């Protein structure tokens, strides 16, 4: 019996070891294949520098738009109870599970020159094909659900009694949102923003289909890796290493933010306890 138990626990340990090794090896290999000095040289290449600038600019704009429009939308979806709410939330989450190529085809079919809204966009004298606007749209499409999903959960976790209390004290709905709901949900919103940013920085499929790839204009870090990998594998490794660091940091931020911002309340309860003693 205890032998069986030992075998089972050994099997669990083995499975865990396989999972960790399999998931970690490719990441470690990126750093092992090229010495750190060469990694830095690879990053100093013009192509990598241009790609870094394009990636930062388009992703910061996309994130700004996601926060600006996604936050109130998430607040609405979290607070309002209406028929089909679960369905609407599922629709918003759909891009999370869509293959990137499908996102690219969809964006082309909707906003492409010959797409559904192509004529309308043309009529305004605008052209988004092959511009950074197209990159921003691709990034926003794939990344915003990460933020909105987390933001809905964060707003749902806010104690409704606090919002009601603010209202009975005379605060209007906008003030309740800005002064009570937002600060209370801030850590969750931050975590969602970090996740969305990480997903956006890594965007590839929809971008190359919808925005194309041109150095200094639409070529993001992921696209640069794809263009570099057969010409200059070291440079591709260097850019990959940079993305591992960036994405890892963002994941860490997303994980730690909620615990950090919970600290004021624990600090408060701690101080209450200390005065009572």
């Amino acid at each position, binding site marked *: 019996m205890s032998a069986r138990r030992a075998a089972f626990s050994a099997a669990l340990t083995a499975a865990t070891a396989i999972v960790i090794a399999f998931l970690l090896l490719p990441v470690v290999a990126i750093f092992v294949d090229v010495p750190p000095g060469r990694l830095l040289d690879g990053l100093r290449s013009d192509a990598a520098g241009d790609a870094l600038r394009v990636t930062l600019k388009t992703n910061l704009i996309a994130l700004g738009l996601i926060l600006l429009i996604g936050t109130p939308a998430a607040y609405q979806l979290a607070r309002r109870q209406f028929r089909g709410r679960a369905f609407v939330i599922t629709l918003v989450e759909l891009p999370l599970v869509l293959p990137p190529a499908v996102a690219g085809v969809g964006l*082309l079919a909707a906003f*492409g*020159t*010959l797409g559904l809204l*192509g004529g309308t966009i043309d009529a305004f004298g605008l052209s988004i*094909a*092959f511009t950074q606007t197209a990159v921003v749209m691709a990034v926003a499409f794939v990344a915003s659900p990460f933020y909105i999903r987390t933001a809905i959960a964060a707003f749902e976790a806010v104690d409704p009694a606090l919002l009601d209390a603010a209202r009975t004290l005379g605060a209007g709905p906008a003030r309740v949102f800005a002064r009570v709901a937002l600060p209370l949900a801030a850590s969750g919103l931050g975590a969602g923003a970090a996740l969305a940013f990480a997903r956006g920085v890594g965007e590839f499929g929809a971008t*190359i*289909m919808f*925005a*194309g*790839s*041109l*150095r200094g*204009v*639409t070529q993001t870090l992921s696209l640069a890796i*794809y*263009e570099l*990998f*057969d*010409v200059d594998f070291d440079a591709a490794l260097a850019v990959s290493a940079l993305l591992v660091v960036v994405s890892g940091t963002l994941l860490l931020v997303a994980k730690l933010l909620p615990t950090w911002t919970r600290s004021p309340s624990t600090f408060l309860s701690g101080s209450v306890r200390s005065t009572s003693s």
Partner: protein
Amino acid sequence: MKVAVVAVTALVLASGAAAETPKLTVYAAASLTDVMPRIDARQRYSFGGSNQLAFQIRQGAPADVFMSASPEFTQALYRDRLVEKPHRFCSNKLVLAVPRSNPAGLRTVFDLKRKDVKLVVGTARVPVGSYTREVLRRLGMSSLLTKVVSEEPDVKSIVGKVALGQADAGFVYSTDVRVASDRLRAIRIPPWAQPKVHYEVAVVRSSEHRAAARAWIARLEQGRARRMLRAAGFGIR
């Protein structure tokens, strides 16, 4: 006992049959995407930019045959003893593809010099991109490269962008326009500016089916395959 003998005989026969016609894995240039499965649908194909396929073969990809849109990649692999001696098997031409609706109103390649033409080309590395640079050099229009709106990893991506009207024009092979003739029109490039576009095919040395791969390549040089290549618009010597 008798059953076992029959079973073993059946196994031997089956494996013998399998050894005679193994399914080959063919890595082929993206511009062959439409014609190759029509010539021989029994093989497994992986289509992509010749440069990327060559890179994958260097990394040990399980290819039996490599079909490149430029001798550059077959010859480089041959020098490094990764493929057997390459054969030329067909040629192609470059054209300027425009959407059927031709929104930029292009009539000749020289119209590209006008402003505001959204031109898409291949990267410098992929064959169609290096041929394009050669054409532009011969036309004395290399400065156009600074106005290109996107550099695509293979010719199919260029075709897609132009066919969808995202781009106003793109340099592709004449065979690509034939395949998408309902959405694309070809603008000819003057013969004196035309680069030599040769396709080469080679057996991959690490293949387990080298004899079968050689036989398959030999069949490519025969009547039916040649007729189909010609019908698709490829040049045959």
